[in-house]
């Protein structure tokens, strides 16, 4: 029987990491991610896992890089203010085909921004924020349970694709307390990490392992030339895009307005959807589970059916770009963004009433009409 507890999103990250057999956590706190640290600092050592206090996020991501090189499951937790610091090594992780789970707790930016929630890193997590061309799977949980499950999934996907995976949560989802059913997810088995460095004597075939984040720069057995390396990376991206799109749809069939959202905004939209339908507005919701890869096809299909799109995101225009790309100019796209917050202080947020208000501005056939 599964255990059910009350937990915060921060703790769900930790629970998920334990369930996924994460062996090493390295981190340096920046508000508001420090709450996760307190839990991890207590629970990881007690569960025989490594908790390394790094002097900065740069240091932390590189320690995790080491953990992954040794074949272990490694994780870092950063807040938006520390996100920039890890970009060089993210790029190196991609080059070296190493799996690390990066939990990003979004807060207001740019610069020191605010210590409270925001959804302003969408473009950073869905594009290649470090040097070079690459993509990284990004998950966006919207509840404590989803955070727990996304963390386990993240470790699986990171190992499956030998690539970093980002969990882009926000300070609201991480800070909320909800019931959490503790259940270890069973994933499909993955091949052994026979590429990991362990000491040549521990390699079953006795051949030394050579890990490099300069693949393409120096010829390796898998990629003898730079172009072959780019081809390999590109193939991986295309495959991830094909296989790993995840989203949830609500009342999409007859929807004339499609809300698109993730994270806490998705919860807001679920409420707004109920309110809209109660007033007879034919609204639907596409809730992103993966921010990348993006569910292009479902939006394209609705665009062709004549739907309008309302992106709801506590940022300034990140998600909107991907929606516009998906609809290929065939639909109107409106936005509810950070400027629509309910109050001017850092604690301001997007409320369902505001989403409803924007929906009503459009004239769309109500339920019951042709």
């Amino acid at each position, binding site marked *: 029987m599964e255990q059910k507890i009350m937990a915060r999103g921060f703790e769900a990250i930790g629970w998920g990491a334990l369930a996924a057999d994460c062996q090493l956590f390295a981190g340096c706190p920046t508000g508001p991610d420090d709450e996760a640290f307190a839990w991890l600092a207590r629970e990881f050592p007690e569960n025989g896992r*490594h908790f390394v206090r790094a002097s900065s996020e740069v240091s932390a991501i590189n320690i995790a890089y080491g953990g992954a090189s040794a074949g272990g499951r*490694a994780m870092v937790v950063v807040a938006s203010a520390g996100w920039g610091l890890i970009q060089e090594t993210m790029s190196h992780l991609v080059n070296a085909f190493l799996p690390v789970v990066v939990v990003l707790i979004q807060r207001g930016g740019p610069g020191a921004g605010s210590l409270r929630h925001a959804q302003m890193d969408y473009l950073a997590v869905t594009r290649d924020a470090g040097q070079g061309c690459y993509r990284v799977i990004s998950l966006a949980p919207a509840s404590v349970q989803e955070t727990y499950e996304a963390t386990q999934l993240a470790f699986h996907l990171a190992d499956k694709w030998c690539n970093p995976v980002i969990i882009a949560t926000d300070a609201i989802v991480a800070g909320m307390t909800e019931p959490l059913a503790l259940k270890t997810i069973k994933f499909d088995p993955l091949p052994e990490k026979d590429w990991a460095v362990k*000491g040549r004597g521990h390699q079953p075939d006795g051949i030394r392992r050579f*890990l*490099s984040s300069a693949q393409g720069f120096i010829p390796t057995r898998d990629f003898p030339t730079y172009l072959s390396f780019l081809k390999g990376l590109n193939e991986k991206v295309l495959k991830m895009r094909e296989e790993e799109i995840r989203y949830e749809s609500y009342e999409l069939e007859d929807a004339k307005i499609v809300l698109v959202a993730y994270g806490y905004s998705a919860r807001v939209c679920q409420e707004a959807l109920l309110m809209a339908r109660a007033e007879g507005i034919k609204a639907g919701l596409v809730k992103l589970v993966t921010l990348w890869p993006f569910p292009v096809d479902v939006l394209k299909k609705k665009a062709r059916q004549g739907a309008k799109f309302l992106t709801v995101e506590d940022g300034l225009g990140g998600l909107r770009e991907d929606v516009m790309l998906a609809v290929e100019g065939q639909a109107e796209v409106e936005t509810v963004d950070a400027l629509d917050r309910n109050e001017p202080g850092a604690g301001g947020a997007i409320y369902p009433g505001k989403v409803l208000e924007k929906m009503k501005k459009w004239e769309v056939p109500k339920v019951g009409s042709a």
Partner: protein
Amino acid sequence: MEQAVTRKKSAGTPRLRFPIKSPIAFCRGCLHPLVGRIIAENIEELGIEGDTVLVGGVGCHAVIVGHLNLDVLLPGAAHGRAPDVATGIKRILGKRKTLITIQGDGDAMAIGTEPLIQAAARGERITVIMINNQVYGTTGGQLAPTTIIGHPTTTSIGGRKSEEGYPVRTAELLAKLNGVVYSARGALNNVRNLQRTKKYVKAAIAKQMDDLGFSFVEILGNCPVNWRMTPINSVKYIEEKLIPEFPLGEFKNLK
């Protein structure tokens, strides 16, 4: 009864040299390969080749790592971060493995200041070997944190002036941190110093194997091309100019 005689090899290539076919090479007269030799001989003599992982930095020094038939990271991720990467590997693989990083002076004491000092302060059970050759060799010979006053580089054309800062004595600096149990400096300008340096590296590795703390060896090397000297003169330079500024010896050796 015949007694077995342990033959000490005095010449020949270390067994751990990995036959790489690609055209990676060092400049003529570069002493970096000797660092590789010292490390390889020590690993062979200690019998730990099956349990050793090498993490290279970013730069000419990293190439050493690729030439050894051991599990290696080349580079060890981003510039200067080898101590962090080694920390992560050591935590996962555990105390029975030996982690050695090979870094240049730019890698370790410029961009890598934070990882180096912090890993040392945390007392991570890793061994860092830093080659002090006075310049950022790979990128064309720019001034490094170790460059002595008066030494000309491409970013200190008339010679380093003290108004622009002073060189750092890394071995002495790290010796002051509580987490460091061994810190020494050797040089490669003659056979005697090479043998001494080899002993220091062995002692450093032994400290790690005894799980005592962080160990460090700074090795005075050369860069004939960027020093604009012949190889012979560059070796003389180590003796005449560098050793007086960077004394050799053990600065910390905790039992």
